[in-house]
């Protein structure tokens, strides 16, 4: 992530973003979110696969993550400076903006049968669909997982397990209750949906 930050600074993205957010109300949402494309992709496909797809993501989830970056509940050297000047209405509008975009097809392959079986067995044990719903599309403040980048899913799972991502201890608990091999299968399976 530090590498990304340096890269963004060198491209003037963050500086530009901070300038562009200052007169927040005077700008359109489209202008406010220009900076996001630098990492999350002009077409919704992030170049760095450890960065999440946010096009078509659930609005409630995006809003809560922006809120948590601002509060410091979720830590990220790139995101926290960007959201620091956002107000609640900005964050909700940005969330709605990206939620209405089409989910991009990352072209990730379907997982092989043995991987899918392992993933579904783990899902059955933990009960992922109780929140992420039957097709893993998410809802409200629960994110869509289907078709998300496999590398991002794997990284996020690892961050939950180590508590590097600390803004959802319920997920940390569930990830720590599941074996790494099962979680790797889940990441591969979900990415291929």
């Amino acid at each position, binding site marked *: 992530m530090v590498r990304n930050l340096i890269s963004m600074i060198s491209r003037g993205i963050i500086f530009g973003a901070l300038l562009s957010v200052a007169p927040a109300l005077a700008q359109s949402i489209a202008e406010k979110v220009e900076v996001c494309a630098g990492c999350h992709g002009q077409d919704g496909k992030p170049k760095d696969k450890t960065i999440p797809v946010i096009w078509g993501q659930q609005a*409630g989830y995006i809003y809560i993550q922006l809120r948590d970056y601002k509060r410091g509940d979720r830590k990220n050297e790139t995101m926290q400076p960007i959201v620091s000047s956002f107000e609640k209405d900005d964050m909700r509008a940005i969330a709605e903006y990206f939620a209405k975009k089409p989910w991009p097809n990352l072209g990730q392959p379907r997982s092989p049968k043995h991987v899918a079986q392992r993933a579904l067995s783990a899902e059955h044990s933990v009960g992922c669909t109780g929140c992420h*719903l039957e097709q893993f599309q998410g809802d*409200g*403040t629960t994110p869509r997982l289907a078709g998300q980048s496999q590398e991002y899913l794997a990284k996020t799972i690892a961050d939950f397990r180590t508590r590097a991502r600390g803004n959802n201890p319920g997920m940390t608990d569930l990830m720590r209750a599941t074996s790494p091999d099962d979680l790797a299968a889940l990441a591969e399976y979900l990415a291929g949906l």
Partner: protein
Amino acid sequence: MDRYSIACATLFGLGCTLAASSHAQEVVNPDQWSPPREAKISPVTQDQLNTADKNTTNFLLTNGNYAQTRFYPAKQINRDNVKNLHVAWIFQTQVKESLETSPIVVDGVMYVTTSFSHVYAIDAKTGEQLWHYSHKMGPVTTYCCGPNNRGVQVLGDKVYLATLDAKLLALNAKTGDVVWNTDIADPELGYSETMAPTVVKDKVLIGTNGGEYGIRGFVRAYDAKTGKLVWNFDTIPENTVGVWATKDATGRDMHRDIQAEKDQLAKIGDPYKRLGGGVWQNPAVDLATNRIYFVVGNPSPDLDGAPRPGDNLYTDSLVSLDLDTGKFVCHFQYIAHDVWDLDAASPPVLVDVKDKSGKTIPGVIHAGKTGHIYVHDRKDCSLIRFSEAMVPQENMWTLPTKEGARMLPGANGGVEWSPIATDPGQDLAYAINLHQPMHYRVENSPYPNGKLWLGGAFTAIPGEKQSGNITAVNYNTGKIKWQVKTPEPMIGGILATAGGLVFAGEGNGKFAAYNSSTGKELWSFRAGAGVNAPPSSYMVGGKQYIVVGAGGNTQVNFRRGNNIIAFTLD
């Protein structure tokens, strides 16, 4: 066409109709091409509601009547002819997701709800849609166990609905138009609504979900005409310590370290502000004494007792209040300082019961996730007896560990939120149960600002067989009279009728009728999706119908569908 789509079509053209349906699980079903029709019902009076237990035409309350017996007094469909029961109609909703609705029927008009808080008015004779209310959900919804809705209630000319984004609405019963809309609580703090309101004497009674999110639970009464708050009862009082109970309601040691808890209490103070205590299901109303009875769910966080020393009152408890004022009357706690989420969710039922001396008194019964049916004295909430266990119990009460401790029942029960039915003529209570062996694990983490706060995890044990059952319990003896085993865990609800029958569905799509005295299966139907909703019954045009939702279940991940299915005889 639903109301929001009409507005879109008028203002912007049909291109914006999709905006009303932002939830991924909703299916397209072109009801926008059929114009809404008026639901021709007479206003529902309080007298009608008071005598719903004797009403052989309508199904007016979520659990049949204020006592919540789920005993329907008609017997046109009975043990002799139920084999001829067949589909009268199938109504497909727009929402293919977990379906937990209890259909309400008034003057031949049926009101059902779906996940994401939709409401449909349907002609109960033909299955034709009359109107559809599509709730415009706020961006933030925070809920456990599925985007469910368990139904509505009608009083006067209004239909009352509580929504996933924690609002309470009154709709025009004839048209579905919103009459008033009140914010109950902030979804960003973990509050949501899935239960049906109970409406009585111009008060709309509603609890809250959120026991998995560190809320402070409540039951509230709102003015049925205006939506203004009348009273609030915090299910978590400011002093939650209790009596340092070491044993559960059945007398088993819960292995609490009382001294450690007392030391923690001295250090952090009373944990009442984030202690959970949601109320998932409807209160029963005792019209004679003007009291209500409901059960309170688990403490937050579910599995970690460290941040919440004490008995955690009134979690895992039966509670009674005065209907007019919301003042506390009595309580009984089943599990003090619960660290297994084996809480109280199934709605209590008011029936006359035998006390310990054999005298018949007003009682209240509740089916727990523990797998017991508890029988109480309605006067002071005290426990008279508890039933034999309806599901296997092993290693109770082993404390959760970091590695995972095996214990039965699993955290869904026993009896989950599923309402029970009773047949007072047979002294029987009918409950549907889950059997899911689980590991209970504990983790410690600080309050996460309205996010999922389990304090660990309960996980189904791979390779261990799960199952379910339908159990009839004599509540005057506590003995099991009969039990039907089912291949999968059961969740949804059950209905008993004067025709000597009980009806219940399974996650594999089977919906069946059983002899209520013996448990013998007399009829069944395959719905194609999980039948995980409580059935209702009603009469229209001189014919009795049985109706049930077949939409599967999120919590136990049963196959989803979007059907309301009505059955009748020729």
